């Protein structure tokens, strides 16, 4: 039991030991989190198709589920479910069947650490409105994104065909490259919050007054990391403009070329689950998670202010970020592979590193009560100097070509 309790760490649900009600609550929470993620995916795909259709002056889905086509995704899912599944001759049958699960399970596990609400009371037990609050918190996200990579890699390899293999080699190189920038962007937030637990990070950004929007949420103090996080998160989830993994013009369908039916659907489900999880993580780390103004005229301990308002703020912020991903998808063309690698290795990692160093300097200055009007400009100036030196050291594209000739 030690293990379970220390994994759940702060959650007051385990304060009184493990009795059947607690187990029941855990099961309810797990099912609810899974259902929520599924519904969010269904909603997101519909939302994405509608918004892109609007941006391109089309109607978009308009048949299934009324004139707005709300049930279009469900109809597509049912269609895929009843399609024939095939395993190619050259495939490695076991790994071919395993790969979809390897990408969908980590996608769900990562979602379990997201706080979608405050502290609530279910069946007489106080608990956090999140599935798990491990002490290692954000590290779990990095671990699951590492495991999720196997799904893509093995899908491409086990198909026993050229295009999927190329797609999965691209995917693994891309994900490994952006994982560094992604992790460094998170570090800046961890320096500010001083804890890895997502609940702790959200608590550190609690809403006290209207200033909290700019003063206690981390998107202002860690703005550079916020931007890098958003770029790296889109690259990690293989979404446009970084969707080279499934570039139709070059690779047919990328790593999913040989997949049919529900297995194909599972890859797409995992991909959209990852996108939603990443947006939710961005909300948690940088936008205060469920924190936001409560309704002052209602009691602070009533159902509305403990259950509804935190969830309302969480989903509002999530919706804003998800709209941003759709917007990017509709407006930016896909990058070239060398541009992708240049952006990741030569810009994002460097800048993320410098942002972490500046953050550390600023935090030390705050603890030691140094004059911040001297320290902050000096730290930022120093970071720009370092960046300039690093840029001078990197050979320019023209020089590289000369060298090859």
């Amino acid at each position: 039991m030690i293990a379970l309790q220390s994994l759940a760490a702060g959650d007051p649900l385990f304060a009184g030991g493990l009795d059947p009600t607690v187990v029941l609550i855990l099961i309810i929470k797990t099912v609810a989190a899974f259902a929520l993620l599924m519904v969010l995916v269904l909603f997101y795909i519909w939302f994405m198709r509608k918004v892109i259709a609007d941006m391109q002056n089309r109607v978009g889905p308009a048949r299934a589920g009324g004139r707005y086509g709300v049930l279009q995704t469900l109809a597509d899912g049912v269609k895929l479910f009843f399609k024939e599944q095939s395993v190619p001759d050259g495939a490695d049958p076991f790994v071919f069947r395993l790969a979809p699960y390897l990408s969908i399970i980590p996608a769900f596990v990562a979602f379990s650490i997201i706080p979608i609400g405050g502290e609530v009371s279910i069946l007489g037990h106080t608990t956090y409105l999140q599935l798990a609050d491990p002490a290692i918190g954000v590290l779990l996200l990095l671990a699951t994104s590492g495991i999720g990579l196997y799904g893509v890699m093995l899908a491409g390899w086990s198909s026993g065909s050229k295009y999927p293999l190329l797609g999965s080699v691209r995917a693994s190189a891309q994900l490994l490259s952006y994982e560094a920038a992604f992790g460094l962007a998170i570090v800046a937030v961890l320096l500010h919050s001083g804890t890895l637990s997502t609940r702790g990070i959200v608590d550190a950004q609690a809403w006290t007054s209207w200033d909290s929007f700019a003063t206690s949420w981390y998107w202002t103090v860690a703005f550079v990391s916020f931007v890098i996080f958003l770029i790296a998160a889109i690259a990690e989830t293989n979404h446009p403009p970084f969707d080279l993994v499934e570039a139709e013009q070059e690779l047919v369908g990328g790593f999913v070329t040989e997949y049919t039916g529900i297995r194909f659907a599972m890859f797409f489900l995992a991909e959209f689950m990852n996108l939603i999880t990443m947006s939710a993580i961005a909300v948690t780390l940088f936008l205060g998670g469920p924190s936001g103004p409560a309704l002052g005229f209602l009691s602070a301990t009533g159902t509305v202010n403990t259950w509804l308002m935190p969830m309302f703020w969480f989903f509002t912020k999530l919706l804003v970020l998800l709209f941003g991903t759709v917007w990017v998808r509709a407006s930016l063309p896909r990058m070239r592979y060398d541009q992708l690698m240049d952006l990741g290795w030569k810009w994002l990692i460097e800048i993320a590193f410098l942002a972490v160093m500046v953050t550390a300097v600023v935090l030390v200055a705050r603890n030691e009560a140094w004059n911040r009007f001297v320290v902050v400009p000096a730290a930022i100036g120093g970071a720009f100097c370092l960046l300039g030196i690093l840029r001078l050291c990197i050979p320019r594209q023209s020089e590289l070509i000369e060298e090859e000739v």
Partner: protein
Amino acid sequence: MSEVVIFFIMASIALCAALGVVLARNPVHSALLLVTVLISIAVLFIIQDAQLLAAVQVIVYAGAIVVLFLFVIMLLGVDEEESLAEPVTAQRPVAIVLGLVVLAEVLFLAGHQWATGAQQSRGSLQAGDGGNVERVARSLFTDFLWPFEVTAVLLVAAVIGSVVLARRSNKPTIDDEVETL
């Protein structure tokens, strides 16, 4: 009680998968089984309350190192029909002898504590003053700062070394001259 049950389940999974790593004919299957071993050991770390170690195990070993193994296997296209003939003939008997020595050492150390120290070293990593992560960080950046920094220098040296090795030299090689001819 549950600790013991989890230990036996995960330990048997780890052992079976470890056998599989050695016995599997296909290198990709071996790599997958290696990931299974690493993750079951991560679970063992969790029941020992070493959560940071478990996370790092999954992130670094499963998430990066074995991915690189797979990457190389895929790029080089190692097939199942790889020749099993050994270039070094004395390898097998030497490996058996060394394996037995290691097994004897492990069995010996399991019953004696003079090499690993008494069990009290485990207590200091448990919750109390800050969690597991804070405690590891504190000992890493105070008592073990020097080894930590030395390891960092070693890793940087390795990175620079591999970049230098991988970089093509500016001098034209024989191949280039043949091409220009």
